[in-house]
């Protein structure tokens, strides 16, 4: 029942969003839908903690704690995005009026997007996971190109092409895996089901699994935004409407990682963890490292955040690559933290971009005086994003590097820390340049254009929630969340952290 509701809600919301002719009704419908979804998810998570694994629809759906975490992310960010969209999407960046039809389409696609992501993380069949990921690309491409400007079309095109190509490679990986399953005596009709594959996992031919894992990593890695397959990421994130950027960065990338890690669990059965860890570590550190120069030289606030996503994806993957339960705990926790803080950052950045009518950071100044709330939140969020205690992002990064040192990955740990420090400096430099500085009231010219005040009330609520969450998680991890994370760690490594 829950599971049915769980898929039905986004569909119903999507359809409902197409009906009204008045813009005013759209946002409440959407918010109600996503809130409802969120409640269902909470119930579902309770069940997961209780029963460990939930299967449904003739074994098509397989939900364990790891999926549960991703579901939590999707629904939470989905709710926040809906809240934010209510205030944000009714204003267009050029100050033109927004057509009802476009907005309806936006909400429709948003729901479908959420639905596809939910499918990705809950499907048992790895082939269906693939299909789901491919559809997320196709759907979200429309969201990326929502504004229909030249740049957004360019971004959407690159997004489609690169991700489709990448995912095609993932398909090869899946085929190889299937082949391996059949050749090691698996039943054909079950050999794409994750739970079945896992049960025969140790019988696989290692050389096939190696190859399969490489294809999967490159393929889903493209979707997850791992360097050097990340090139679509900054374009899509910066050109999409802000709520969509938040969704892309906060959840979609994690879905890619989810798929990789799911597969690596399988591959580890026959290969042992060393091989996959090595690959993950390499791409993880490469992603962090490659984000550094672009963060340093960035001029555009949303691209900055996009590159920061690249960095954080790298951090998460490095965490998985270290392979210690603690680092995996950290990586999972970081997924959550990054989703929250990046959502927050995109929201604030979107508000600023709307207020100043530009994404160019050199033209945005002294945000704390113009928009006291947004500016402050952006600054605090920037600190959190850069990994400063007492916010939870620090903790997850801490777990990762702790495990890195524990496992004696000296070079990796040193590089990790070095990159993080440089990024801290660069990021804070940009963020402070935007938020602080000479009071604009002194320069009369700009004062005329920009009125003091926030963009929307719903935006305030939408960015206050994640801010509170990262503050809270920095000092207090709820027992249920801990259980969820720990159960996920058990799924991945076979043992929990405590």
């Amino acid at each position, binding site marked *: 029942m829950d599971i049915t509701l769980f898929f039905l809600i986004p569909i119903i919301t999507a359809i409902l969003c197409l009906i009204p002719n008045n813009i005013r009704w759209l946002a409440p419908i959407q918010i109600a839908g996503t809130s409802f979804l969120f409640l269902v998810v909470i119930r579902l998570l309770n069940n997961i903690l209780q029963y460990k694994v939930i299967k449904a629809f003739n074994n098509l759906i397989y939900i364990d704690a790891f999926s549960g975490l991703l579901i939590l992310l999707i629904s939470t960010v989905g709710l926040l995005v809906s809240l934010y969209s209510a205030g944000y999407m009714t204003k267009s960046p050029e100050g033109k009026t927004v057509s009802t039809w476009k907005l309806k389409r936006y909400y429709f696609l948003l729901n479908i997007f959420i639905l596809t992501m939910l499918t990705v993380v809950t499907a048992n*069949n790895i*082939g269906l996971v693939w299909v789901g990921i491919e*559809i997320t690309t196709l759907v979200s491409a429309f969201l990326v190109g929502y504004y229909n400007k*030249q740049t957004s*079309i*360019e971004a959407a095109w690159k997004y489609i092409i690169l991700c489709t*190509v990448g995912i095609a490679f993932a398909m090869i990986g899946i085929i190889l895996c299937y082949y391996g399953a059949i050749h090691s005596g698996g039943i054909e009709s079950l050999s794409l089901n994750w739970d079945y594959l896992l049960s025969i996992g140790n019988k696989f031919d290692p*050389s096939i699994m*190696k190859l399969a894992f490489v294809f999967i990593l490159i393929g889903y890695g493209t979707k997850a935004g791992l360097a050097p397959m990340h090139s679509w990421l900054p374009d899509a994130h910066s050109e999409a409407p802000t709520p969509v950027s938040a969704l892309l960065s906060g959840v979609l990338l994690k879905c890619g990682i989810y798929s990789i890690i799911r597969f690596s669990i399988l591959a580890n059965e026959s290969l042992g963890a060393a091989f996959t860890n090595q690959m993950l570590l390499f791409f993880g550190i490469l992603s962090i490292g490659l984000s550094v120069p672009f963060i340093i030289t960035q001029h555009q606030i949303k691209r900055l955040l996009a590159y920061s996503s690249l960095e954080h994806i790298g951090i998460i993957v490095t965490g998985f690559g270290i392979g210690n339960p603690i680092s995996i705990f950290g990586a999972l926790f970081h997924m959550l933290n990054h989703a929250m803080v990046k959502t927050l950052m995109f929201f604030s950045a979107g508000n600023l971009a709307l207020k100043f009518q530009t994404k160019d950071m050199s033209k945005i100044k002294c945000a704390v005086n113009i928009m006291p709330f947004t500016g402050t939140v952006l600054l605090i969020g920037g600190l959190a994003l850069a990994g400063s205690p007492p916010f939870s992002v620090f903790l997850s990064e801490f777990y990762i590097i702790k495990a890195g040192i524990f496992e004696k990955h000296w070079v990796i740990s040193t590089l990790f820390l070095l990159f993080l420090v440089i990024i801290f400096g660069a990021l804070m430099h940009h963020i402070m340049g935007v938020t602080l500085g000479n009071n604009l009231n002194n320069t009369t010219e700009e004062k005329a254009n920009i009125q003091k005040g926030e963009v929307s009330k719903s935006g305030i609520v939408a960015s206050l929630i994640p801010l509170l969450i990262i503050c809270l998680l920095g000092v207090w991890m709820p027992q249920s969340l801990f259980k969820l994370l720990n159960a996920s760690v058990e799924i991945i490594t076979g043992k929990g952290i405590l």
Partner: protein
Amino acid sequence: MTNLLIKELTPSLLSYSTVILLLMSILIAGSNRLQSIVKFYAFQSLCLVVITLIVGFSTSNSETIRIATITFIGKCLIIPLALNFVINKTQVHKEVDPIISPPTTVLIVCILIALVYGLTSTPNFAKIAYSLGLFDTAISIILIGLLIMISRRKALTQIVGLYVMENGIFALTVDTVFGMPFVVEMGISLDLFIGVLIMGIWVLRIKQSFDSIDVSKLSKLKG
């Protein structure tokens, strides 16, 4: 009798189809007329359908035959038609001034094929490659598809390149595992058909706002 015929004919038919499959990819790589590229693609897909059918009959797997049917409808009819529609709509017929000229592309393709065939004989791959006749061909086609995407400027050619890659993957599926389970295969096919429609829409949008479908003009976002 028919069974025997099939048994006799299968290997040679398979190998002919394989060669045609590869040849079509090379032709696509070497051609610069969009319409003929689409035609070559359709023909390549047909070969795939034939192979699938052969495999299906020889293993008497009804699912595989169903898959072949869907593939025929999709790849030989819907996708080429959709692409032709886009070509007519955008009125772009020729790949002008590609990044890598057709002859050079063909040369690179040949080298690629040689490399792949060489690589698949290394010990690590031999295990996989040995049991499959099409493995190296499929991998070559995938890489050729990618090469086409890299070497061409028109959005449309890129789509074709993508689908050539997809054909390679399909070949791999058919060859290695005699097709995926039906649900998955359905999903994938559906994905492709939706994909071509959506990409078609995007090509039209590109045409609309850039007045060209030259992808290399889409390079404002950098850094």
